[in-house]
C-alpha cells in the first residue's frame, strides 16, 4: 500500500517543475507544456485523496480538470497561431506591447 504522502510529494515536485518551466522558458509552446505538467500534478493529488477517502468524487474532479485542460490547450494554441500570424515568432520576449 503506497501512503498518501508519496502521492502528495510527487504531485508537489511535478507542480514545481511546471512552475519553473512556465516562468523561465521563452518559447510559448513550451510554456503551455509547463501548464500541462501543473494540471497533471493536480490530478495526482486529487486521485490520491480520492483513494485515501475511499470514494469516487476525486476522480470526477480530475475528469473535469482533463476537460478544462483540453479546452485550454485548443484555445491557447489557436492564440499562438494568431500571434504567429501577426509577427513571425513565438518568442515571448517579442510580445511586450501590453507590458507596462
Amino acid at each position, binding site marked *: 500500500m*503506497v501512503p498518501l504522502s508519496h502521492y502528495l510529494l510527487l504531485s508537489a515536485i511535478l507542480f514545481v*517543475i511546471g512552475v519553473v518551466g512556465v516562468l523561465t522558458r521563452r518559447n510559448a*509552446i513550451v510554456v503551455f507544456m509547463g501548464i500541462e505538467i501543473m494540471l497533471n500534478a493536480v490530478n495526482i493529488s486529487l486521485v490520491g485523496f480520492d483513494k485515501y477517502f475511499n470514494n469516487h468524487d476525486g476522480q470526477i474532479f480530475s475528469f473535469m480538470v482533463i476537460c478544462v485542460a483540453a479546452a485550454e490547450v485548443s484555445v491557447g*494554441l*489557436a492564440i499562438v497561431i494568431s500571434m504567429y500570424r501577426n509577427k513571425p*515568432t*513565438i518568442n515571448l520576449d517579442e510580445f511586450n506591447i501590453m507590458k507596462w
Partner: protein
Amino acid sequence: MELLIFYPLAFLCVVMALCVILGKTPVNSAISLIGMMLALAGIFAHMHAHFIAILQVIIYAGAIMVLFMFVIMLLNLKSDDTAAKVRDNNTSLVVVAAVLGVIILYIITDAILGANMESPQNLSETFGTVAMVGEILFTKFVLPFEVASVLLLTAMVGTVVLAKSKVD
C-alpha cells in the same frame, strides 16, 4: 510490493518532466511530455483509477499531444526561436521561480514528513472501475458533466474563430 511499481514510475515521471523543461527543441519537449503522460497513466492505473488512466492515455497522450506536434510542425519556426533559451532581461523571473520552488517543496515535505497516512479503510473490490465512476458521474455529478460539454463546445467555437485566417 506496490512501492516497487510506484517508485520507478514516479522517477520516470520526474525525469521526463525535467526533460520537458530542459529540452533543446520544442519537439524534444513534446516527446518527453508524451513519456511523462504515459508514466502518469501507469501511476493512475496503479492507484485503482482505471477510468482516469484510460482518459490520460486517450486525451493527453493522444489528442492533446497530437495538437501540440501539429502546431509545432505548422509554425515552421526559425532556429533562434526553437533554441532552448531563458527569457532575456528576466533574471528576476528565474529567481522568483527558484524561490517559489524551494518554498513549495519545503512546506509540503515539512507537512507530510513523518506522517504515514495509510488509508483508514480497505478499498472495496470494485473501487475505481469504470462502472462505479460512471454511475456517480451520471447521478451525483450530472450537472457538471453537462456543463463540461458546453465548455468544450465553447472552446471549439473559440478555436475556430481565433485560428481562422482573415477573409472578410
